[in-house]
């Protein structure tokens, strides 16, 4: 009863293309707005909950554990430890890339090695494919490389680089 089609068979039917005219203006809210302003100034801004001590990066206006408003803005270091790193040979549309894009997550300071949650960012890492492949980049201390022209978005950081 079920009928799988071959790839060739998909070339024959008439295809109707349609592009919806839909645009959105997101509200970044107080926390992400301040975060983006911080990036423009070359700083990474978080919010701290004084009850449990947790530092949120990107900042959050309330602590999800204590379920109360967070207490203060804090500037965290633009330095941290590479938790994980990968090398992508495909684009987001699954086109093959010649040069891999290298990204990962960074546990920023202040934080400790055994924290399950921590101020963390997802970003590009400036290192070679070999350093990803042999895993030597994981656990390394890195620092943000800031662009000289900044406009208040995550691209104000070029990447994180080993120090």
């Amino acid at each position: 009863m079920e009928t799988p089609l071959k790839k060739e068979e998909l070339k024959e039917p008439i295809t109707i293309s349609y592009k919806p005219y839909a645009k959105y203006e997101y509200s970044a809210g107080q926390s992400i707005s301040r975060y983006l302003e911080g990036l423009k100034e070359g700083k990474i801004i978080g919010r701290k909950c004084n009850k449990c001590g947790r530092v949120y990066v990107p900042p959050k206006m309330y602590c999800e554990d204590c379920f109360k408003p967070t207490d203060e803005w804090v500037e965290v270091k633009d330095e941290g430890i590479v938790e994980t790193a990968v090398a992508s040979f495909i684009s987001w549309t699954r086109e093959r890339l010649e040069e891999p894009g290298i990204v990962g997550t960074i546990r920023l300071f202040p934080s400790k090695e055994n924290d399950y949650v921590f101020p963390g960012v997802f970003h590009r890492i400036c290192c070679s494919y070999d350093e990803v492949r042999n895993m030597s980049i994981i656990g390394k201390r890195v620092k943000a490389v800031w662009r000289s022209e900044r406009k208040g978005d995550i691209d104000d950081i070029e990447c994180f680089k080993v120090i």
Partner: protein
Amino acid sequence: MRKVGIIGAGLTLFRRRMLETPQELAYIAASRALDEAGLELKDIDCVVIGSAPDAFDGIHMKGEYLAKAGGERKMTSRVYVGGATGVMTAISAWYHVASGLCEKVLAIAEEKMSPARPHPQSVFKYIWDPITEKPLNPNLIWIFAMEMHRYMAKYGIKKEDIALVSVKNKRNAMNNPYAQAAANITVDDVLNSEVLVWPVNRLDVSPVSDGAAAMVLATEDIVRRYTDTPVWIEGVGWTLDNTSWPGRELAYPRYLENAARMAYKMAKIERPDKEIDVVEPYDPFDYKELHHLEGLMIAKKGEAPKLLKEGVFDIDGDIPSSPSGGLLGVGNPIAAAGLMKTISIYWQLKGTAGKMQVKKPVHTGVAQAWGDLMQAATVIVMRN
């Protein structure tokens, strides 16, 4: 709470580029489930629809659309927890009966991934945070590759040890008449397949699939009236962690441990590694099965690869894992894949799994799924 049992289940073939519409796939699976149960649609009180994202089928309001496959003029609802949806569909159907609200429930899960253009990967771009993540042009494989590499780094696990999951599941799928990606492959085949996002190669990943699954659940007296081989749902659990995945230890699925504890408490399981006879952990990627065997507390943290190597999770091992072939072998029409895992445990416990039937006698089985942004887990415990 009322005791709830399963009396029927049905699957469509899992394939890429199915001619049938999502509604037709859901109808096929639902009819097969009703046939196995010995019921007709008019006997069903409520319907639960599971579909993970609307975007794959390209149809907005999927719940309303799929309701045509049995839910019209009935108490019908849709559940959605991303990849965890398939097992959540069964859990939701369970609480419709357990609560005393309904006598007979039809659970339907469907997903058609192949219509997305230029590639299903593109759809996933929209799950990322539009301000802090999407500008980096991520694709979904990135996030799994990051988690896999973290898991490898934290516990010193090698790629070849992880690849054994893909080898095992695709081999198990040879026994599954619904499977799309059954194959006898070797670890080298996995390691030599195209590198997508290092450390993920093409054969570490489940395929793009279309398909549907359905199940009929009922109260104890109806179950006893309709079958001599009842299978009962004895524990359910589900939890959500936060979406702040870059600020979390990715090596261990805390979200799953929480859900598993809830399900085990209900089913009175104290030693999951001793009491579970057969398991279908969620395996869209090979490392994910190992990750989930640890989150389910069937293996200790970082030790699932060792047990896998020793054959513990083989079809004739102590705790067969993904005897159906899992998502890696059967295919991954997202919500349908999770319900397929639940159904495969049901068939194992009923003793009707055919060539998939595990060698040892089985009494307690667990199915699990996972989804959203590295955060949702759903667990179901069944006994015969």
